[in-house]
């Protein structure tokens, strides 16, 4: 399917999802759905770096929270700025952080890169905690309007719609990359960087592009957060559960294609939301742990690994 056709199909699915959520006619559906959508964007963004190029990023929280804190800062500096503009700005900030991180750490491979990104998360959290303009350790309040200026819909529905749109963009971009020259380049980096260079692939440039894109999507996913939670403090913004969930979702769904993170995010995200309501919110990380163990045993290549054509067997 061509990219434009795929985007159209994705948009169609998004309209159906919004319609279904409207039909249920319960504000909580939008609250819960927003989180699931946010994780689709996060895990799709993570997978561009982690799945396609094989660099495992434990610093999701840093990129995500920087997006959120950009909004807090913008909210104070330029009141009344439309949220999509703030999302674009948050994406740029996190994308630049991704670029910088990439430049500093991409000489590290495997576990060492993972540790560096985890450290990044701690460093950025410390900076934010000590920056009183965005609330410091006290946290910041952002008053959520009741309604939007243009469509006059409920604000939570507006947030849900924005995140839905962002999901469409993220998934569409991820798929477009997968089938492109860039996607092949990313795959060679995952497989063997020396051989990639010898085959003419500019590995450093491609890795920087992957970190920037990945960070950018995470930042955009974080930008509406202050309006969603209305109170943001460093401990919740930089919560480790973002990093853990964002790694677990592509792993459960499958990292080799755009569909994997989507399946993982919908499955795990929904399960966590249901468990939060029916059992307890503390249960969500336990669910992640149990599912990860289960999937490592049952589906080492993720859910899409069960359905992928068995390549390389037979003549």
């Amino acid at each position, binding site marked *: 399917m061509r990219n434009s056709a795929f985007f159209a199909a994705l948009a169609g699915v998004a309209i159906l999802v919004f319609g279904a959520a409207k039909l249920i006619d319960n504000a909580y559906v939008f609250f819960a759905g927003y989180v699931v959508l946010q994780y689709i964007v996060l895990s799709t963004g993570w997978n561009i770096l982690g799945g396609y190029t094989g660099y495992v990023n434990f610093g999701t929280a840093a990129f995500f929270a920087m997006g959120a804190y950009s909004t807090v800062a913008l909210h104070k500096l330029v009141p009344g700025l439309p949220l999509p503009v703030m999302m674009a700005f948050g994406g740029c900030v996190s994308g630049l952080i991704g670029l910088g991180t990439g430049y500093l750490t991409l000489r590290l491979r495997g576990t060492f890169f993972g540790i560096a990104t985890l450290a990044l998360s701690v460093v950025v959290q410390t900076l934010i905690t000590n920056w009183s303009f965005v609330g410091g350790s006290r946290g910041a309040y952002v008053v959520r309007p009741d309604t939007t200026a243009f469509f006059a819909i409920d604000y939570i529905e507006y947030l849900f719609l924005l995140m839905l749109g962002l999901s469409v963009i993220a998934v569409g971009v991820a798929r477009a990359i997968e089938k492109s*020259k860039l996607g*092949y*380049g990313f*795959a*060679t980096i*995952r*497989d*063997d960087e*020396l*051989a*990639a*260079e*010898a*085959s*003419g*692939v*500019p*590995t*450093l440039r491609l890795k920087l592009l992957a970190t920037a894109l990945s960070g950018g999507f995470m930042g955009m996913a974080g930008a509406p957060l202050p309006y969603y939670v209305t109170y943001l403090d460093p401990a919740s913004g930089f919560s480790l559960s973002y990093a853990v969930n964002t790694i677990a979702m592509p792993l459960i769904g499958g990292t*080799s294609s755009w569909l994997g993170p989507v399946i993982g995010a919908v499955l795990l995200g929904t399960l966590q939301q249901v468990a939060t309501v029916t059992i307890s919110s503390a249960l969500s990380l336990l669910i992640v742990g149990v599912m990860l163990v289960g999937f490592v045993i049952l589906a080492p290549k993720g859910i899409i690994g069960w359905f992928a054509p068995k*390549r*390389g*067997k037979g*003549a």
Partner: protein
Amino acid sequence: MSEAILTVSGLGKRFGGFVALADVELEVRKGERLGLIGPNGSGKSTFVNCLCGTLRNDAGSVRFNGRVLDGLKAHERTRLGIARSFQLPRPFTTLTLAENLRIPLLYVVQTRGGTGDIDKRCLTLLDMVGLAGKAHQLPTDLTQIEMRKLELARAMAAEPSLLIADEAMAGLSHQEIDDILALLMRLNEQQGVTIIMIEHIMRAVMHFSQRLVVLVAGRKIADGLPADIVRQDDVVAAYLGS
């Protein structure tokens, strides 16, 4: 005599206190078939890595087609026309054989402005090394020999003017060596590709090379006609002990 395609002057490389290469001089002419031999640890692979940009040389310089390569990254040198095969095959393991060859076609040939049907070109190349039947399999299913052939095919896919074959024949049978030799000969004679062959198998090197260069302990100790070189006392001593 045709002009030089590769000029190496005063090339040096150290790893800490260990001198891997010292003051290596080499000139390779366009269309030449050069054999590079030397005992294990003599610096052959380090030399290749310095030529291809995988390692940075500490001293000296490398010129290729009149361009100074020092400071250029490996992928830039590949785009200029130097291709290599690795001593231990390094296929892209999650990509099929056809996709493996697609990479240099996309990233080297296309960036040079080359056009043409990439899928067809992949199959032609695979057919050349006898792997066309496995085009859609993963490299993990290949035997060692097939992996070496894939390695060569991928290097050739970049349409190089200089091909460096780093021990492409180690561990192969007599017949398989002849196959690969014939392949390299064809490449050299029909397409005019200059080839540097690094090899331990003397039968192959003697048959293939027009000129032989010997590296021992990071220094070039001999350079000349193969038949003369193998009779030289210091070369014999380096291989067999004096």
